[in-house]
């Protein structure tokens, strides 16, 4: 398993410091949750890690190797996968094809022009495996645009799994998923814990405290606390800045 080290990472949009000198160690094999109020810069941070967004300064190390200057596709090839908060699927592809094309990215050249890909048993088998893990195997032949919201979230996860990541960045996998669906989803994530190092951004506090080994709190682009769920929960600074406000909202 792999570790991710973030050193003094910065990003500004104009005068607005969205990521303000963030340093963080994600240990090998842990599920590290990042929580924070809306607008704290969580999605920006994930986008910087995945390479979708260029950082202004700082460094990101995957297993001790700097990936700061690499493009998003190159980072994926080193084993850094992400899922999106706003579902990013290929709407006119079937569910299976959405996942198979992700498998294909990691197995063999995509500059093959003549043999039909639809019948590629190896690709399809591995795609089905990923779909199974995400609990979507029975919907494999449905067009992705026809999925329900909850199923889209599962597909998003299955695609990320299919890239065979060493580190998985999950941007609010539970966004908009409610009730029983959410419970099943959390159970699914818990099963994955033993296999990947994970960075999880999530608003659902129940899920975070059930899943996370450690939690970091991001407020206005700064990490104000890192620790076990219990430590973070009892940190007065965190309660003041974030949790209290959240509980009020809920109440």
């Amino acid at each position, binding site marked *: 398993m792999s570790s991710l080290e973030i050193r003094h990472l910065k990003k500004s949009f104009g005068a607005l410091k969205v990521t303000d000198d963030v340093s963080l160690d994600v240990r090998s094999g842990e599920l590290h949750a990042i929580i924070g109020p809306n607008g704290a810069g969580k999605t920006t941070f994930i986008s910087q890690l995945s390479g979708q967004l260029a950082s202004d300064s700082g460094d990101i190390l995957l297993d001790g190797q700097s990936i700061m200057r690499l493009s998003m596709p190159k980072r994926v090839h080193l084993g850094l996968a992400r899922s999106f908060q706003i579902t990013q699927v290929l709407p006119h592809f079937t569910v299976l094809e959405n996942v198979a094309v992700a498998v294909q990215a990691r197995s063999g050249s995509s500059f093959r022009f003549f*043999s039909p890909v639809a019948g590629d048993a190896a690709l399809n088998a591995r795609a089905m495996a990923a779909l199974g893990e995400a609990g979507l195997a029975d919907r494999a032949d449905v067009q992705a645009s026809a999925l329900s919201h909850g199923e889209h979230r599962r597909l998003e996860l299955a695609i990320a799994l299919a890239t065979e990541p060493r580190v998985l960045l999950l941007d609010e996998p539970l966004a908009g998923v409610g009730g029983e669906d959410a419970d099943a989803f959390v159970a699914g994530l818990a099963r994955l814990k033993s296999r990947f190092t994970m960075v999880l951004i999530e608003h659902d506090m129940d899920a975070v405290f059930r899943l996370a080994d450690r939690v970091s709190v991001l407020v206005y682009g700064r990490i104000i606390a890192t620790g076990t769920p219990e430590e973070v929960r009892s940190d007065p600074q965190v309660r003041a800045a974030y949790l209290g406000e959240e509980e009020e909202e809920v109440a």
Partner: protein
Amino acid sequence: MADATIPHAAPMRRPLAGRVKAAVVLFAIFAALPPVAAALDDPFFVLIGTRILAYAIAAMALDLILGYGAMVSFGHAAYLGFGTYAVAILSSYGVHDIFLQTAAAILVSALFALVTGAISLRTRGVYFIMITLAFGQMAFFFFISLSAYGGDDGYGLAQRSTLLGSDMLENDFALFYATLATLVALFWACHRIVGSRFGRVLTGIRENPTRMEAIGYSPFRFQLAAFVISGCMTSIAGVFLANQAEFVSPAFMSWHRSGELIVMVVLGGIGTLSGAIGGAVAALLLEEALGALTEHWRLWFGLFLVLMVLYSPNGIAGLVKQVANRGRKS
């Protein structure tokens, strides 16, 4: 982003068999044309037919990047030009073999597509359209200033290309069937490409480039490869056009021609390959029919285009479907 360029581009998922079936029907009709023309004693049909077949090749090649890659290239007539001039220039040096001429056309087209594509694909949307248009125009002006081959006025071919040393293509029927055979072969190639690993990645980039990057693909390389393939195929259409007209001129590569190629692809429904073939047939027949009625056929063709875009966004295929649906409802 390119994904915003053609929102309705994503074709309805048709079973592959449908795509092939439509093409087979078209091919069968084409194959029956020369005997019918002979029976009617009107060989002119065969010449028009050859022209339609050549444009069908070009439109299908354009569909490969327009329909499957969401790249609106407005400079594809340049490749028609490379094909026609490869025939003219080589033949003026005594090289008449159609394979050598085609190889030269493909070589030049590949180079041009590689360089201009690499620059154009760094941009998106409106930029891409305008830059490909400008590069097409660059090629156009190059051939206009090529005074050794008539410049603006064009250049008549002394003879048609030879096939395996024989001058059989001088026969209009033989040329027609050679063009048809090439169309069928290239359709098969396109069909395979679209269904291959490469085709799946290309289509995925059309659907959602961000997603494709996030699973490890760099869109640029795939788009560029498709752009080059498409350019090379289009130049093959040029080789047949030159033989059909026995004349080459920069008019083959004007920006109007590029626009007409796009019209053909859209007319038949984009991203279907067989649609581009049907679109080429429809556009050229419409042109012939309007041209026979009035010298101002462009006015009506333009009007038709504007109305089609405003009222039937999915081309003739969409129009047919609309009418069919309405019929079913009533």
